[in-house]
């Protein structure tokens, strides 16, 4: 292991001469002594012919390019007729090395990277990253109240957007196309809000260590209120369409069963866990950002199946709307970044004639009047702030479950190691338990009920 040195050329070598391709089917041994084969399709027989007397074995690769696999998820399904006898997931097709990249950027820039992990609910990633860095710096108490309220509001809006995608794509995959069009229609006003507040529909980098990048725009409260009312109205459509719908029930009830024991063993969190009847929600159990001051309930079901998870997501949409409404009542004028000028971004962002950027007043100050302010700006932007050496783990309840961030610092201006415990990654392990023994068509229903986002799974 350690005595081998790898050169760049090793890692980026093109595949060898095509004539050598026949050799790739040769197994190589793992550390555990198991053999690992590389199959490229249509050549399974070269590796393992069916045993004597065994029925014909059919192995189907579902994905990684398949419209019902929620992105680049590959499932290797062993079939007996239409029944699934064995199923394994292969992931890594969207691995982009985000965690490694973060080690070469400043702590503030990390927000830009984590938001691209689970890109459907990116604000949760930013929130948990910011909270973890703040814990490491010991400045949790200095986060202004307004910033915390905005964080809660944005993370709940993000939960709504994520659940809508889960319900919409789940509907589409099971043939309820109207569920898809409605879900994406309903998500659009939420994304418009994001655009108005952060400047972007996704990949916001809005919640940053120390607070949020920019204050809410003037008069946005009214727009948010209108959006909530619109959502309340529109969510009824989806509820009317799917809840109690006999076709929907037929596809989802009793499918993808995973009980509490299975969830605990496999580390499953989120709607899947709550569909077993356990009201475990980190917003209640380990409140962050002042969640203990908000009134909301944790919906549960006891069916342990796809339908139960769907009902929980529908109920959580309403709860999240209630929380956003409470946030509007709690919003008081004030700063949105920590007071400490050695941490907070030196300027507020504003929208100018050429788009969003540093405010003109700030540019005027640093370029025209204050040399020290210019040095300060330059140091903080290029070098960043230092974070005391140590480690911290912070978890939030994302739309998919427990989203944890483990950050390690060596006292420098960059994360020494940043690891996201993404709920999609862990929850995806349960696919085999949910689907083996069932029908092939139920695989799709199970996957959609897990709601994995491959950006978060592979990172």
């Amino acid at each position, binding site marked *: 292991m350690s005595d081998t040195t790898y050169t*760049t050329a090793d*890692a980026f070598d093109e595949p060898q001469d095509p004539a050598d391709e026949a050799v790739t089917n040769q197994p190589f041994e793992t550390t555990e002594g198991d053999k690992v084969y590389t199959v490229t399709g249509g050549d399974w027989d070269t590796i393992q012919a069916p045993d004597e007397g065994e029925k014909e074995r059919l192995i189907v690769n579902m994905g990684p390019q398949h419209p019902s696999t929620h992105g680049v998820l590959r499932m290797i399904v062993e079939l007996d007729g239409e029944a699934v006898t064995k199923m394994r997931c292969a992931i890594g097709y969207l691995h982009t090395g985000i965690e490694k990249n973060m080690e070469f950027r400043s702590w503030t820039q990390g927000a830009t990277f984590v938001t691209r992990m689970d890109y459907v609910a990116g604000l949760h990633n930013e929130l948990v990253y910011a909270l973890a860095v703040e814990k490491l710096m010991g400045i949790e108490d200095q986060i202004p109240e307004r910033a915390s309220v905005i964080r809660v509001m944005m993370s709940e809006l993000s939960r709504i957007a994520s659940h809508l995608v889960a319900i919409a794509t789940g509907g589409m995959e099971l043939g309820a196309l109207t569920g898809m069009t409605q879900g994406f229609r309903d998500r659009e006003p939420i994304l418009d809000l994001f655009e108005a507040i952060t400047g972007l529909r996704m990949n916001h980098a809005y919640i940053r260590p120390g607070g949020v990048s920019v204050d809410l725009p003037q008069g946005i409260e009214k727009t948010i209120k209108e959006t909530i009312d619109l959502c309340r109205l529109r969510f009824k459509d989806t509820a009317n369409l799917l809840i109690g719908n006999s076709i929907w029930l037929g596809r989802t009830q009793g499918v993808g069963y995973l009980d509490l024991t299975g969830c605990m063993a496999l580390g499953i969190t989120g709607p899947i866990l709550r569909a077993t009847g356990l009201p475990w929600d980190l917003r209640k159990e380990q409140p962050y950002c002042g969640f203990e001051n908000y009134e909301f309930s944790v919906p549960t079901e006891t069916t342990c199946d796809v339908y139960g998870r769907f009902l929980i997501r529908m109920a959580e949409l309403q709860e999240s709307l209630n929380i956003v409404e409470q946030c509007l009542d709690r919003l008081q004028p004030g700063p949105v970044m920590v007071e400490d000028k050695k941490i907070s971004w030196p300027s507020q962002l504003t929208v100018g004639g050429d788009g969003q950027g540093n405010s003109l007043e700030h540019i005027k100050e640093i370029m025209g009047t204050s040399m020290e302010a210019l040095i300060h700006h330059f140091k903080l932007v290029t070098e960043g702030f230092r974070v005391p050496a*140590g480690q911290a783990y912070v978890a939030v309840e994302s739309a998919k479950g427990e989203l944890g961030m483990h950050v390690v610092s060596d006292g420098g201006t960059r994360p020494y190691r940043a690891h996201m415990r993404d709920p999609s990654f862990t929850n995806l392990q349960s696919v085999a338990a949910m689907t083996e023994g069932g029908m092939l068509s139920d695989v799709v229903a199970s996957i959609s009920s897990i709601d994995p986002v491959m950006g978060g799974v592979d990172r």
Partner: protein
Amino acid sequence: MTTPTSEPGDELEPSFGIPIAPLEIAEHRTGQFGITGSPDVSGYGGLSSNVVLPPESLRPFGGWFDEVADSLVEALGTGSGGIEKFVVENGQLTIHVKRDNLHEIAQALRDDPLLRFEMSLGVNGVHWPQESGRELHAVYHLRSYTHNRMVRVESTCPDADPHIPSLTDIYPTNDWHERETYDMFGIIFDGHPYLTRIQMPDDWPGHPQRKDYPLGGIPVEYKGATTPPPDQRRSYN
């Protein structure tokens, strides 16, 4: 880093003197900015400082940490010598354990009624190449739903012998997490049912999250200016 000089269990007795735990020095820095390769003209180029990781914590830890520590020591009995030290930092408890005892300690953490850390949040690797003899760290986060608590368990192994026992038989959820840590750091989890790569392709050479892994970037030229690859840019660490 700690070398227990007393009998197992003695370390957990309350200490009233000055902390004697050796400092965990992560790094030594010189100069004002921590840069290398270009001269430090700040006038503070002679600065010299150590980056110190949080040291071993002494009793009482505070809160429920003492309860967990006591229960764990009691549950392990004579095996409690496997606990290297307790560290409380940022309001979180880290239990540093020897890798030989990791399995039994995890078993006790899960099964003891007073501990009941029944939920594993996976394992994460950290590579500290400068800590000779314990370069590779495996960090586990365990959550107790019963008591609503969270602890961190940290174990290490040397680069030359990167073996740590697998916890998949205690926490099946660690299956993919251990595969990912193997993939990224090359830590071999003994006893894992099929320890194969999970994110990188099966035939990938090297373990990308290790600090000595070559990034392989090239300088990029744009409008006459050249930007070096990320690992060759000026670093202030």
